[in-house]
């Protein structure tokens, strides 16, 4: 019986990928905290995880000109704009730095939790391979 490393890690690596994407989006929000007209965005983890599990291959369209837009199948599907907490900030920007910072922190913690789970799996496998850690 062959040992499948894919099955060992399970869906954890997909979860980590989605968390990375979410951190990317939030870091973009924080970088644009003073950009006029910028609207804060976020990833719906549920939807993103579903599409990550269903479409493994990232199908993207061929670009023949530098001005072409990249038409990936699942690139923008899960991205949504955040519902603003205050009606008008004066310059059309609705990034709430506190909210974004907390979201970034939370995603980072969850990412680390995911890492620890994977680490535990590796440790278990190591133990099994070295016949009980001797």
């Amino acid at each position: 019986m062959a040992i499948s490393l894919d099955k060992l890690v399970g869906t954890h690596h997909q979860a980590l990928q989605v968390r990375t994407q979410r951190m990317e989006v939030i870091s973009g929000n924080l970088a644009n905290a003073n950009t006029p007209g910028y609207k804060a965005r976020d990833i719906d983890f549920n939807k993103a995880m579903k599409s990550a599990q269903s479409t493994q291959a990232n199908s993207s369209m061929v670009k023949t000109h530098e001005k072409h837009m990249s038409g990936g199948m699942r690139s923008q599907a899960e991205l949504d704009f955040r519902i603003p907490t205050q009606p008008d900030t004066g310059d059309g920007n609705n990034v709430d730095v506190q909210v974004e910072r907390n979201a970034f922190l939370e995603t980072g913690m969850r990412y680390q939790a995911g890492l620890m789970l994977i680490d535990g799996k590796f440790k278990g496998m190591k133990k099994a391979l070295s016949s009980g850690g001797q």
Partner: protein
Amino acid sequence: MGLFNIMNISGTGMAAETVRLNTTASNIANANSVSSSYEDTYKARHPVFAAALDQASQDQTKGVGVNVLGVVESQKPLQVEYAPGNPMADENGYIYKPNVNIVEEMADMMSASKAYETNVQVADTTKRIFRRVLQLGQR
């Protein structure tokens, strides 16, 4: 690699805020400089920020960095003062002072330094997480 994109994005944020701090420093430093004509007078400068959407769609990233489109000079009227004793006064005895609002600039400076700090913290958190990834399965 996703984690490097985060570093890039917070890097663009830091660069943009540095430009803002730079213009603020220049504005405050020149707040009291005088000149003898309307054209030669220093005018308050402010950077224009815009989301780097083109680059984001090219690199297939989900996060969007920030671009500094340019620095524009303020269109507010200058302060004209009657000071015939000033060596910089024109033939009618007027000197021209910049349209820099010191209070506004100080508030801008605080906002820029806070935003810079936020971007640094994002990069720092990313660095720590990345280190954890590299240590995966080693201990």
